[in-house]
């Protein structure tokens, strides 16, 4: 092997890399928050909604989980255009990521909701709590606590999967890399750097979720139970 590594060719582009990282984080953060809220609502609908709603949500979840993300992104992106709307590529990217992650969040949360024993709900009913209060205090909080590790994995995966948004010209980290490697012809070096940056981002995101978990799940913190 006689390949001569030359990382110095990438140095002038550090600002572009930084912009890409920033957009990747923004896309991921917004999609995570919207995906969590949407996923929780879908999970409640699927666990406790009227039969027609259960079927609709169930069908949506199955379609999303059984088609490639790249295809979903194209469908959302071109679908918006067909509808005659003009939206920013980043908005389309977030929309597509949310459509995807809501389905996965829904299934993870549903597992959590179903793990809450019926007797817990009965006890809360007997104390006179309303349905909404029961959902919030007795079902969702312990359910989220239980499936939190699975949710974190899903959202780290979302951050990594956001690289696919480069395909619809959202200028996130991978899109930046694609441009830089065609400018410098230093493809291998470029993707080594980008790979390492994604690795670092994953650690940062996991660490942030871990800290957030300690903050929110008081019992885990006080009893020292692993998160």
């Amino acid at each position, binding site marked *: 092997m006689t390949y001569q590594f030359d990382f110095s060719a990438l140095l002038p582009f550090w600002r572009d890399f930084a912009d890409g990282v920033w957009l990747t984080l923004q896309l991921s953060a917004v999609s995570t928050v919207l995906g969590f809220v949407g996923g929780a609502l879908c999970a409640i609908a699927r666990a406790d909604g009227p039969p027609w709603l259960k079927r609709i949500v169930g069908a949506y979840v199955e379609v999303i989980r059984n088609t490639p993300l790249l295809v979903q992104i194209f469908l959302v992106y071109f679908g918006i255009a067909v509808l005659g709307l003009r939206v920013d590529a980043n908005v389309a990217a977030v929309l597509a990521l949310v459509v995807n992650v809501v389905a996965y969040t829904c299934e993870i949360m549903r597992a959590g909701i179903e793990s809450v024993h019926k007797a817990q709900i*009965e006890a809360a009913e*007997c104390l006179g709590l309303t349905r909404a209060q029961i959902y919030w205090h007795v079902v969702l909080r312990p359910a989220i606590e239980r499936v939190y590790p699975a949710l974190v994995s899903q959202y780290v995966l979302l951050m990594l999967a956001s690289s696919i948004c480069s395909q619809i010209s959202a200028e996130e980290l991978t899109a930046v890399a694609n441009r830089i490697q065609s400018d410098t012809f230093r493809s291998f070096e470029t993707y080594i750097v980008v790979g390492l940056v994604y690795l670092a981002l994953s650690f940062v995101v996991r660490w942030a979720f871990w800290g957030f978990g300690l903050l929110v799940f008081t*019992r885990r913190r006080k009893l020292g139970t692993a998160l």
Partner: protein
Amino acid sequence: MSAVVKLANVHKSFGPVKVLDGVSFEVGRGEVVAMIGQSGSGKSTALRCINALETIEEGAIEVCGHRIHDDTLDKRALRQDVGIVFQSYNLFPHLTALQNVMLAPTCVKKIGRKEAEALGRDCLARVGLAEKAGHYPEQLSGGQQQRVAIARSLAMRPKVMLFDEVTSALDPQLTGEVLKVMEDLARDGMTMILVTHEMGFARRVANTVIYMRQGRIWESLPGSELANPQTAELRDFVGSGL
């Protein structure tokens, strides 16, 4: 004595199985009624009907003025008057003992946090667990968890309390500490209906003991008379327990 709880000719089936076959009894204010009988005799179902956890097919139940058999029953209003404690405690695992007790007063009665906390600590003190306020359920013994569950019910200041085999999962020592709390409640004038296998407790504390068999009240007698049953079946049943 005005009746707080009144059952009149209550019928209930689970599929083809008749669980309650014309049950009628009344419980007056401050009275303690113990329901005993074999498993499957309908005693727990009767108790659950009183709190509208089961629907009935025939007859009438009135609890603190709430008509359980009416379609217009406001279950949440009913449950602010009736407390229930279950065999499996059913504490909320992610909340401390104090938070478990405070949850309903803050959510349902909308009382302020400070006031709710004082109320919560007071209720925990009544069951002898003032110093366990900050503990989570998994850090407590079964007997302590059950006492927290009793405190959680007490915090809503119910007019009637129902106990559904609350000591069945506990060893004799832990059973003793839970029964002591219940005895204190009875002495303070709480109206109580309990399903129990603790014959000694029924005899000592209950004003009335109801012996259920095949979905019917087979025999009803004062607790103090439990050693002298009229029917052969009850004699057989208590024979093993006393």
